[in-house]
Structure formats: structure tokens, C-alpha cells
């Protein structure tokens, strides 16, 4: 039963990752590509981590996995903002 749930979570996380990559390739603009990127970062990794936590052997690993997801969440939010800001600044300067 746990295996089924975690399989579902992992597969849906994988789906978001692939959606993010395809969006990165197909969308026309840097800003729209950032949208696609953050979906992969937040939901893709989040669902994947949730599925892996159910498979984890002990609590310490589960906590580590959660912390990794939280770190990526915060870091990718800030990175996306910084990259967009950097691009915007270069646009308005030239």
C-alpha cells in the first residue's frame, strides 16, 4: 500500500520535472521559462521527496530529505527572482 502511494508520488513528481524541461525548451521568453523552471523545482522535487520519504529506512533520512526539499524551495525562489532581476536590468540598460 505504501509502495503504491509512493509510486504515485514519484511518478507525478517526475511528470512535473519533465513538464519543466519541456517548458524550458518550448517557451519563448526567459521570464516564461522561469515559470517552468520553478514548477520543476517546487512541485517536482516536492512530490519526488514525498514519495522517497515513504520509502526511507529511518527517521533521520526522512528529515534530511525534507530539509533538502525546503532548502531547494527557498533557494530556487530566490535564484529565479535574481535571474529575472538581472535579465530585466540588462534589458533596461541596453
Amino acid at each position, binding site marked *: 500500500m505504501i*509502495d503504491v502511494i*509512493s*509510486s504515485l508520488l*514519484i*511518478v507525478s*513528481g*517526475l511528470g512535473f*520535472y*519533465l513538464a*519543466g*524541461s*519541456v517548458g*524550458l*525548451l518550448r517557451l519563448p521568453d*526567459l521570464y516564461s*521559462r*522561469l515559470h517552468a*523552471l520553478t514548477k*520543476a*523545482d517546487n512541485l*517536482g*522535487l516536492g512530490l*519526488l*521527496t514525498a514519495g*522517497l520519504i515513504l*520509502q*526511507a529506512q529511518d527517521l533521520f*533520512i526522512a528529515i*534530511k*530529505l525534507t*530539509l*533538502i526539499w525546503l*532548502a*531547494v524551495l527557498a*533557494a*530556487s525562489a*530566490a*535564484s*529565479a527572482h*535574481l*535571474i*529575472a*532581476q*538581472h*535579465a530585466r536590468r*540588462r534589458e533596461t540598460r541596453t
Partner: protein
Amino acid sequence: MSELLSVAAVGLMLALFLGLLRVVRGPDAGDRMLAAQLIGTAGVGVLLVLGLLLKQTALIDVALVLALLAAVAAAAFTGKQCETGND
């Protein structure tokens, strides 16, 4: 379950590979940087899955380090220097 994990690893690697195309192509430096972020996050996913698949819990530590250092790389990309006026 390990079957699914193997397939998940392949899927994540595929996502990474697609991100590579953007890194190589992307007309702007910002495009390349955000593709590098995707490669980093896909790499974190791959390492987590591999860690559980190969029973190597140290790979989870590697995933943590990769996640943090990808943030450092993005920060380094967008920092503005004081006097030179570049970027």
C-alpha cells in the same frame, strides 16, 4: 519498487538532458543560468533516487551539498561589482 526507482532515475536524467539543450542553445546568459538551475535540481533528484536505489545514504548528503551550491552559483552569477560597472 526498485524497478520504479530505476525508471524514475532515467526520467530525471532525461529531464536533465533536455535542460542541457537550453544551456547550450539559450541565446542569453540568463537562459543558460536558469537551465543550469534545472540541471542542478534534476541532479538533486537523481542523487536522491540513486541514494535509495544503491543503498548509499551518503548520496543524500551529496544532494544537499549540490542544492546549496547551485544556489551559490546563481548568486555568483547575479552579483554586481562595485566599480567596474559590468553586469
